[in-house]
């Protein structure tokens, strides 16, 4: 009996040897619970897109944080021609790119992948079908290394090219996928947790809720510096911080501002702030009968938000101050910030609108984490306290994010705390949803029906001259800032804590992270 106790104690507490060289494994901790698939044509979630980006290559791509210059990916060159009825895009594939299966990437794989995206109708497929207006059969292999794609004249080839940098344009090994297809699913089931790409890594294991393990793709053109990547699911920010501090993980995403401050002060670690294109904002419902249909009240609200304290006190540097609808980093961003916290002015405006006793309203927030790593209820509580001094009595209703969205979509909110990220890196990814009521997106949800704003957004979307486009967006952003249903609170940065041993880590504003460029010192 007693011996067994000692055997047990030895087994549990005994020292153990590590099986792997620590510099050859990169451990990345974060909340990956949104991960539901790694199929490039289906994936649309932040973490899924980030991972799939390391498994698959696209024809063209952006490098680093530069979202303006297209660079060669699988295609070494491309050209755009104006046909009689269509835009004709021709891509020349480079030779010798290989899938993790060892097969060469050829034009038929590109055709298969694009047709697959259209057939599967994943959540991101509107990028192909609506924005690029791509039709089945419009992608052709002219020879094994030449692909031709035709899109209608009414679509913008520039937008299409930037969409092609997104995972939906990731090229899969058509033979391997067809081999694993079941009942006409085009391999969707299999690709959910297997990979068949030419990217620097291949997927070796995904234990849902626990970890995703990537290994260097032995046939890839791009060789990663660290051959093995482990993505650990860690949701608790406090636990995440401890894991980083104790060396269990190398990269920590989702730390609290306090945690980041402590990490930044320690020479063994460093902090990277990834810029995002996300905007955190308040949406005021302007539908008939709502108090916020009154422009004076919306104006008062803009003076009732203490943006500076919010940024300094709560976000502590993990956000950029901005008040207009196009985020910093995209063409057309308008840096003007005319509104300052002014409770007296807000009260006066309220009184002018007939609310001498102030106004009570419901502020709808998610129970989740808002941009910049702060819990949304904390942001709401801060807003509530500042608004109270300005005559607005906010009743906070914190509910699951899904319910916030459902309420918002049904136009049943009074004021909502929400976030928005553009679907593709172009100002139109914000301008149309925010300004065009007909697009049935944010403007519609807040009953902001302004024909001038909608027309400006449409006009700017099709304008090809960058300077003219910029000018149009300046008019639009100013107008919506003063009249619209939004109070933009901030543009969050995504703060990430790293071990000082980690070099070359980067996360771009579209939230992709080229892990193959990361190296790890002993």
């Amino acid at each position, binding site marked *: 009996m007693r011996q067994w106790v000692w055997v047990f104690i030895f087994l549990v507490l005994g020292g153990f040897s590590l099986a792997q060289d620590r510099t050859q494994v990169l451990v990345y901790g974060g909340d990956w619970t949104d991960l539901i698939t790694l199929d490039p044509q289906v994936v649309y979630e932040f973490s899924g897109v980030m991972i799939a980006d390391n498994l698959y290559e696209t024809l063209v791509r952006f490098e680093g944080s530069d979202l303006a210059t297209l660079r060669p990916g699988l295609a070494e060159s491309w050209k755009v021609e104006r046909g009689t009825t269509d835009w004709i895009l021709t891509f020349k594939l480079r030779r010798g790119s290989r899938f993790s299966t060892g097969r060469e990437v050829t034009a038929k794989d590109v055709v298969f992948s694009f047709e697959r995206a259209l057939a599967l109708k994943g959540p991101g497929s509107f990028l192909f079908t609506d924005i690029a207006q791509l039709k089945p059969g419009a992608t052709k292999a002219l020879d094994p290394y030449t692909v031709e794609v035709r899109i209608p004249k009414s679509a913008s080839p520039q937008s299409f090219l930037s969409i092609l940098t997104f995972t939906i344009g990731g090229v899969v090994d058509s033979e391997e996928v067809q081999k694993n297809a079941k009942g006409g699913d085009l391999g969707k089931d299999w690709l959910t947790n297997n990979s068949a790409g030419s990217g620097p890594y291949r997927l070796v294991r995904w234990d849902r809720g626990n970890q995703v393990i990537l290994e260097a793709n032995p046939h890839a053109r791009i060789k990663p510096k660290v051959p093995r990547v482990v993505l650990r699911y860690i949701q608790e920010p406090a636990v995440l911080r401890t894991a980083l501090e104790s060396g269990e993980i190398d990269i920590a995403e989702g730390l609290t501002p*306090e945690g980041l401050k402590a990490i930044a002060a320690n020479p063994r670690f460093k902090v990277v702030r990834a810029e995002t294109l996300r905007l955190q904002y308040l949406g005021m419902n302007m539908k008939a009968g709502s108090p916020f249909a009154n422009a004076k009240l919306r104006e008062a609200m803009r003076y009732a938000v203490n943006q500076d304290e919010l940024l300094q006190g709560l976000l502590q540097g993990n956000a950029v101050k901005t008040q207009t609808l196009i985020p910093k980093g995209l063409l057309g961003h308008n840096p003007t910030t005319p509104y300052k916290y002014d409770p007296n002015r807000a009260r006066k405006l309220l009184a002018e609108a007939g609310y001498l006793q102030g106004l009570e309203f419901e502020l709808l927030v998610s129970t989740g984490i808002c941009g910049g790593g702060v819990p949304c209820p904390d942001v709401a509580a801060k807003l509530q306290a500042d608004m109270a001094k300005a005559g607005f009595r906010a009743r906070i209703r914190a509910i*699951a994010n899904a319910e916030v969205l459902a309420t918002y979509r049904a136009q049943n909110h009074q004021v909502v705390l929400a976030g928005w990220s553009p679907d593709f890196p172009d100002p139109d990814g914000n301008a149309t949803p925010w300004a065009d009521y007909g697009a049935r997106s944010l403007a519609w949800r807040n009953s902001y029906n302004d024909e001038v704003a909608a027309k400006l957004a449409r006009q700017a979307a099709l304008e090809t001259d960058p300077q003219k486009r910029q000018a149009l967006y300046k008019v639009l952003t100013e107008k919506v800032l003063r009249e619209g249903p939004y109070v933009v609170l901030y543009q969050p940065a995504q703060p990430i804590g790293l071990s000082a041993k980690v070099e070359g880590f980067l996360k771009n504003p579209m939230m992709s992270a080229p892990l193959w460029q990361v190296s790890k010192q002993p």
Partner: protein
Amino acid sequence: MRRLARRFLRNPGAVVGLFLLLVLALVALLGPGLVGDPLEQNLLERLKPPSPEHPLGTDQLGRDVLARVVHGARISLGVGFGVVLLASLLGTAVGLLAGGLGGRWDNLLMRLTDVFFAFPSLILAMAIAAALGPNLGNTVLAVALVTWPIYARLVRAQVLALREREFVEAARALGAGQGRILLRHLLPNALTPVLVQASYEVGAAILTAAGLSFIGFGAQPPTPEWGAMVAETRNYMAEAPWAATAPALGILLTVLAFNLLGDGLRDVLDPRGR
């Protein structure tokens, strides 16, 4: 009665429990008037350690932890009693009907009880709270819905045991109706185990409700509910352990008090059950 009280008071645990409860009741009744505003924030004073001004420090929004904990006492006691009241009413009614009517009704009602008994309670409460929308009222309802079967079983067992006893036979012989026998004769005698169970269940209900709030299916911010407070401040354990510890101790002491009280009551009222 006096003998029972004396026996109760000879049990040191019971006395401690009773004392704790009295203190808690006082805090819940009078406390909120004595401390500051539990919702007032001061972001410049975030996560400050205990000081004369803030005896239990401040939380991540610079709110006074003491004020929040004191207000939380009222909420948690309210939740605990609310749950037990609802659950014991429902459970007693079901148990009384099952035991009293017998036969097919008994069978049906007890199988229903089995279903709820086998239900993973926290998960059912989560589902209910998610469906109805998370707020304290729904939490009370949800926890009551998962805890009533225990009373139903207790009461039914008592009723079955008592039904054949002489005083019930006597009442029946005197021509008392079924309903009258149930309410006048069986119910009062079946209540003792319910009372003992209820005293434990207040503590258990407070724990469950706090757990629900902790994972976001209960009280909503900025409500100073103890479980929600621990949840909101748990990420600051390294910088400000007081902010999460104070409400957690609140839960611990309250639950402890009810457990001690339950032990004491059981010793006195139901000496066999130990």
